[in-house]
């Protein structure tokens, strides 16, 4: 049986969520319809909205359901940028970091290329921590030009955590909206939609819900421009028939995940620490990418100098162990990680990476199985070299 250690890519839905979905799918009625079946599904949707809001310390009206994290990030980046330049054309600077997920980087680059936006990528330390002193200086000198600051809560490759409260503290006096992509953080570390934060992206399938549902939390005082018109649903920010089944599933998965977090977090860190220590012993040249910086407990990202990530991935797959390199493009090509490049690593270093991500059912035996294969896999991958 496959040992699955790629839960950060996607993880299995909770059985309770699956059962609930099967049940919900049989309930006829568009949540926007005024008849009784419609109202029944509307009730399911709105109770899901309330549940999710409660889990995140948000107001129910701040939850905008989307098709996933990527859509949420796109609405945040483009919607806030457009709203800012509409109010003041000289507010056209977006501030972010190149360690962000492509769902943030790509819309920013699209705005730069097609809409005349400016971007400032903040410096990142070699452990992946964003330079918030630089952000402070930037807000002081060019604060009146900044349309939006977007920084992720936890990095999806390295797991390193950014102090988002501090980011909001820096941005607030200058009236700059802050968006955070919390897709990798939600359910893995304590997060909340605290006052002052303008927007936050989350996704269901990372917390034991289904693929195809996510949400953008949008503070009551924010009015991002809508990317998708038609029907006026979700505060007019995201038109389209509302997915009551998905929203309900998301809320249930979120509730279970967050409740487990409080009790299981310590155990997960324990497993992670054992993994990191053992890798260091077995392959002394390997480097734990985030070093001693704070991070989420379910992600361990390593670089293996002289190896190509795709060789290691192939060899582990042969042993029925599923991991990832942390970065994949549409064609399934394992390329040098843009996150590690942003952290100042060379292309060679950024090519030899592995991301081990733990799930709720990951046992120490799974980690042991990976560790048992690692030395041989590393030896062969080293022999195969970086490219040939």
């Amino acid at each position, binding site marked *: 049986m496959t040992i699955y250690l790629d839960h950060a890519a996607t993880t299995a839905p909770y059985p309770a969520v699956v059962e609930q979905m099967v049940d919900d799918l049989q309930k006829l009625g568009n949540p926007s319809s005024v008849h009784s079946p419609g109202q029944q599904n509307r009730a399911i949707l709105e109770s899901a909205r309330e549940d999710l809001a409660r889990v995140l310390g948000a107001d129910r009206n701040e939850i905008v359901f989307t098709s996933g994290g990527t859509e949420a990030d796109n609405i945040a980046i483009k919607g806030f940028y457009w709203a800012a330049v509409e109010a003041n054309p000289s507010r056209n600077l977006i501030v972010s970091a190149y360690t962000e997920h492509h769902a943030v980087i790509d819309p920013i680059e699209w705005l730069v290329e097609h809409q005349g936006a400016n971007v400032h990528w903040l410096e990142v330390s070699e452990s992946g921590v964003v330079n918030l002193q630089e952000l402070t200086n930037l807000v002081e000198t060019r604060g009146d030009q900044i349309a939006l600051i977007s920084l992720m809560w936890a990095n999806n490759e390295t797991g390193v955590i950014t102090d988002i409260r501090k980011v909001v503290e820096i941005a607030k006096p200058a009236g700059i909206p802050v968006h955070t992509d919390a897709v990798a953080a939600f359910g893995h570390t304590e997060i909340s939609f605290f006052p002052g934060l303008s927007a936050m992206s989350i996704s269901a399938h990372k917390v034991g819900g289904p693929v195809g549902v996510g949400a953008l939390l949008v503070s009551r005082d924010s009015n991002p421009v809508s990317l998708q018109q038609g029907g006026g649903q979700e505060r007019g920010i995201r038109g389209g028939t509302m997915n009551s089944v998905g929203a309900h599933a998301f809320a249930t998965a979120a509730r279970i995940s967050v409740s487990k977090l409080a009790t299981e977090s310590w155990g997960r860190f324990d497993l992670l620490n054992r993994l990191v220590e053992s890798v260091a012993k077995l392959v002394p040249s390997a480097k734990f990418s985030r070093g001693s910086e704070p991070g989420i407990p379910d992600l361990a990202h390593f670089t293996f100098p002289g190896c190509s990530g795709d060789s290691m991935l*192939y060899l582990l797959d042969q042993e029925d162990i599923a991991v990832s390199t942390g970065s994949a493009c*549409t*064609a*399934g*090509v*394992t390329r040098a990680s843009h996150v590690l490049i942003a952290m100042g690593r060379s*292309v060679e270093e950024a090519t030899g990476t592995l991301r081990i991500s733990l799930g709720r059912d990951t046992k120490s035996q799974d980690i042991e199985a990976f560790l048992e294969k690692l030395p041989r896999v590393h030896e062969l991958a080293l022999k195969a070299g970086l490219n*040939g």
Partner: protein
Amino acid sequence: MKVLVAMSGGVDSSVAAARAVEAGHEVVGVHLALSRNSGTLRTGSRGCCTIEDSMDAQRVANLLGIKFFVWDFSERFKHDVVDDFINEYKSGRTPNPCMRCNERIKFAALMEKALSLGFDAIATGHYATVEEHDGHLELHRSPALAKDQSYVLGVLTEEQLKHVIFPIGVSASKNDIREEARQRGLAVAQKPDSYDICFIPDGDTQGWLEDKVGSSEGEILDRNGKVLATHSGSHNFTVGQRKGLHIEQPAKDGRPRYVLEIRPKTNQVVVGPQDALAIAEISGSRFSWCGVAPGSPEVAFEAEVQVRAHAEPERAMVQLVDGNILAKLETPILGVAPGQTAVIYLGSRVLGQFTIDATVSAIPAGVDE
């Protein structure tokens, strides 16, 4: 055997993978990502470098029930094939990037990686066969002569031949392969053949080179050194080219002029009558033997030489002289350019190959052209 099949997403490598599976090998498919900025959909007659091609390959692998991976060789490809192509043109030579790719990527980088990772061989969808004679492996032309690709495989050494299989090499024709793909239910059965250079998106080699190399004015001369016109860069010309010379003054005999020689150091292009394109001798120092080397190559031997992928083989006397392979052609051939690869055949067997450095014209310069 544990076999890694290089799957471009085309019909040939797809059927090759299917046959390797059927032959009982333990097969894994790999698609080589050769471009940093792959297009989304296939255009024109390029056939390996888009995401669509990669997806096609993956779909075939799914249908065959084999594992599939995409490996990134784009850095290596850029360095060893694309940059080499540009540098060769800059040096006034006409390179063959497909051969370079076989020599440096498919049967070198990929093969080394595959062997290191525990594979016994790599398989490709080339039309050629490997045969064993007297304990030695030999590369032979495919029976599908119209599609024979032994020319572009001429760079393989005996060691490499030990680790390659060409599952469709014995096929009678491309149509058979398409029919087989159709019967196997592979959607790539009707996918068009690829002809163009894969890394030049619109097939406009000259425009692409102009972009990479830039332009600089130089002279067009006749064989006696008389300046006839100017041009915007010698890389825009290839030996044998007739069009685009823009010489206003006609030749004395009124016949068209052809590019005979490119002198990149002085940025000069030499032109002359078509007869002067006839080449009697070719030679080159960069050579390799395919399979076991001939016993005494210093002694001239009879063979056939082919200078382009789809050219006719020409009878020649071949000899190793002072580290150079020299081929004296029985009948002069037209339009041979330095940089091209000459593959040496003994009947259907590929004996070796060399890159042409120098040519000797069959007809010396006229007094007045």
